[in-house]
């Protein structure tokens, strides 16, 4: 028999791929299920009556309605913006704009709302501008308008970013052929862009829908009144003020059914390809398109310009108000901001790393599994944290582990754990595509050459994952950095994290410092994103030195 020239690669056994992911996915399912069950077991209210109440039905109707409109709005804006960005593959500030689009998602909502109001509110910049021109603000921000505006602010950039990436995957030759044929904009859409976008749209729509469906602070602040109540708000109310665990659990189940059902559909059709940008395809030469000249060119530039303004203005508004205070106070080394920053990072960095590790394990397991129930469960478990509100997860977890464990000592670790779970849906999206980037014959060759286990990770996967991992780390870290809900739930010693500091300042009339903290938080998030994307872009040598 032909003798192998080397031993089996380290960690090559199939279980090394399967076990960690399966264990994690089982734990996530257990935590979520256990959390819900723990709430149900504290039953003391009449679920049937609740189910039939007009209030609940109204809440469900409104939640679905606003989420649907937000999805439509976000996608309808994202499509033309993405096409315009693809038509113009190089202009100054393009990569900055793309980074901004990736970031919008992780902006803490209280900061974003404050920025949006400063620009689009009744006394905002826009209103002032219009007043100066002798016109009036054509809308009332509070109500469905405000909710949609905020949801579009959060989600349209994300959607557009994903679409840009998808459209850039259309092979250059197809574009060349299209340009030779002299296809117009509409025909290009039909022949090239639509077929490319169609596979990602269901997953994208489900992602945006879930994000808007579970939206909380935005809906309450900009919604105008109790008519604008989402299920998430009702859950919060039930848990925090009515102490009605049962109702909270029931509402969480409704949310789980609607959003979970949607994801199930998406997964069944296998339409969940890489949806978050992997940052690897954003620049490059493309064929000149006949629809990027003349008046179309100007129209595209105007569209991109408007979109950039739409994104940047609220951020600028926050900086505008926060920087003066920061500039005055930042030299003070006793500043509460420093401690809070360190504490925030101490939670956020481990949370981000844990999120990445969990994601890789889940992906490895789903890759190793054949299609079937275990694989579907492993896939879906990563999306559960998007659907099950953190407050339910947190309270359930609390009920499960609290008895005598002395939550105080575990508090921050639990916060980091829940934060990392919350980031999973996003890190999964970032890493799924690159994780599966080796395909077809290449994989067969890898098998034949015995590049398995550790060696496959080291040589075939890690080099391709380096960049996306930094982005995933960025998402995981910054989502945790901006989190207020979970950390507030678990309580803390008197030293606050950044979002807690912000809330404490707000609660103590410290308006100027609060604007400073908000600005600082935003700056920190930006810095982490920029830093990590730099890190990911360092030219990769694969690390072999040979003469």
């Amino acid at each position, binding site marked *: 028999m032909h003798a192998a020239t080397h031993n089996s690669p380290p960690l090559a056994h199939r279980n090394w791929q399967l076990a960690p992911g399966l264990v994690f996915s089982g734990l996530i399912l257990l935590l979520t299920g256990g959390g819900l069950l723990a709430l149900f077991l504290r039953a003391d209210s009449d679920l049937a009556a609740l189910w039939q109440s007009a209030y609940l039905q109204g809440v469900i109707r409104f939640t679905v309605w606003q989420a649907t409109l937000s999805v439509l709005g976000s996608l309808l804006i994202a499509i033309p913006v993405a096409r315009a960005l693809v038509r113009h593959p190089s202009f100054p500030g393009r990569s900055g704009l793309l980074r901004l689009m990736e970031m919008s998602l992780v902006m803490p909502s209280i900061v974003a709302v*404050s920025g949006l109001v400063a620009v689009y509110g*009744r006394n905002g910049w826009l209103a002032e501008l219009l007043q100066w021109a002798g016109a009036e603000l054509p809308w009332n921000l509070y109500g469905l308008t405000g909710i949609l505006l905020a949801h579009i602010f959060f989600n349209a950039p994300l959607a557009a970013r994903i679409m840009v990436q998808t459209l850039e995957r259309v092979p250059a030759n197809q574009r060349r052929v299209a340009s030779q044929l002299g296809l117009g904009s509409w025909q290009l859409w039909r022949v090239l862009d639509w077929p490319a976008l169609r596979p990602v749209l269901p997953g994208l729509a489900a992602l945006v829908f879930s994000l808007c469906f579970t939206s909380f602070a935005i809906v309450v*602040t900009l919604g*105008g009144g109790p*008519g604008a109540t989402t299920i998430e708000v009702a859950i919060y109310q039930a848990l925090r003020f*009515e102490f009605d665990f049962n109702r909270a659990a029931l509402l969480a189940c409704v949310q789980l059914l609607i959003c979970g059902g949607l994801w199930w559909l998406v997964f069944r059709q296998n339409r969940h390809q890489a949806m978050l940008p992997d940052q690897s395809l954003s620049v490059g030469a493309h064929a000149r398109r006949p629809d990027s000249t003349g008046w179309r060119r100007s129209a595209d530039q105007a569209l991109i310009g408007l979109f950039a303004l739409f994104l940047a203005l609220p951020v600028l508004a926050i900086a505008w108000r926060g920087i003066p205070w920061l500039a005055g106070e930042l030299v003070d080394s006793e500043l509460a901001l420093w401690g809070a920053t360190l504490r925030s990072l101490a939670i956020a960095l481990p949370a981000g790393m844990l999120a990445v590790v969990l994601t890789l394990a889940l992906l490895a397991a789903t890759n190793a599994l054949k299609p079937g129930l275990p694989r579907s469960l492993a896939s879906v478990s990563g999306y559960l944290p998007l659907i099950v509100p953190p407050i339910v997860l947190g309270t359930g977890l609390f009920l499960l582990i609290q008895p005598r464990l*002395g939550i105080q000592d575990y508090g921050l670790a639990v916060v980091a754990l829940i934060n990392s779970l919350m980031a999973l849906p996003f890190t999964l999206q970032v890493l799924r595509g690159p994780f599966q980037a080796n395909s077809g014959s290449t994989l067969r060759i890898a098998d034949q050459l015995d590049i398995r286990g550790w060696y496959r990770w080291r040589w075939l996967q890690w080099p391709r994952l380096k960049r996306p991992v930094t982005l995933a780390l960025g998402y995981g870290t910054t989502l945790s950095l901006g989190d207020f809900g979970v950390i507030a739930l678990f*309580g803390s*010693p008197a030293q606050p994290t950044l979002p*807690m500091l912000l809330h404490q300042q707000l609660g103590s009339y410290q308006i100027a410092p609060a604007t400073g903290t908000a600005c600082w938080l935003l700056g920190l998030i930006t810095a982490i994103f920029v830093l990590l994307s730099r890190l990911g872009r360092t030219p990769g040598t694969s690390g072999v030195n040979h003469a």
Partner: protein
Amino acid sequence: MMNVRQMLRTAPILLGLLAVHQAYAEPVLTVYTHPSFAAEWGPGPAIKEAFEERCNCQLRFTVLDSGGAILQRLRLEGAGTSADLVLGLDTSTMETARATGLLAQHELSLPELSLPVDWQDPVFVPYDWGYFAFVYDTEQIDNPPESLEALVNAPDDLKIIIQDPRTSTPGLGLLLWMKHVFGDQADERWQQLQGKILTTTQSWSDGYFSLFMNGEAPMILSYSTSPAYHMAVDKTDRYQAAPFEEGHYLQVEVAAVVNSSDQKALARAFLDFMLTPNFQRHIPLKNVMYPAIDLGDELPDVFDRLIEPSRALMFPPEALRDHRQDWVNEWLDAMTR
């Protein structure tokens, strides 16, 4: 490398050391409270220092995000709670908290209190109080409404920001205020008010910071004491509270000893300390509420310039326990109809 058996052998020694350490360590008094009390700018830090000076103990704050969260945590933990004392419940959560049976009587003879109502409660000790009021921007409004009735009947171009009674203490305060003044007609009055409500925020901070300070509306539901902070610290008279003829709804913030605590004596010493000037002098400008005892000259001057409501309105806590849910539902009905 230590093997398992060695480790097992050393464990009792370590445990013993730990026990000795605990016996000689200062006792720790764990207080569940909310952020505005424990924050750097709140009264918490100064009070901690003042109390630790005399108690030969350590005061430890566990910060939960609101009064509701304190109660919630207490219920979840039951008798296993690590809290010795809760500080930051108020008159609207009091009865629910009492019903848990987790709180002990204070057993103190309270000194003379300076509250607008008579206070006789065996469990809860008040530490500050305030009136809910609408705060307005004098640069945008010259003549604010002079009563709740006038506010309800004002033209719809007067915009106000309120908070959601389901998620916020002042929000619930307004609900009770309306109920107290208008009784059975409250839901009609809410409908009349609706056109003037720019938005209903989840929390007081969201409304105050994101909207009111951005100039989104000239009036916001807050406390009658809010202007004191702006006058004393921000040095501006721009924001003032509008006095309403019907009187203002009262909120009293309270503390209580936890029954399962093994530091009850210390907790009671804290409650005792709570009603001395050493604690109370930090309340007016750091918690921006009225102190629970007469501070005499120590009360900052700006407090003399606050509105003085003709009547303090308050439902008995039991009424709240029995009807709160119905009233909130009524409100929901009126607002979504």
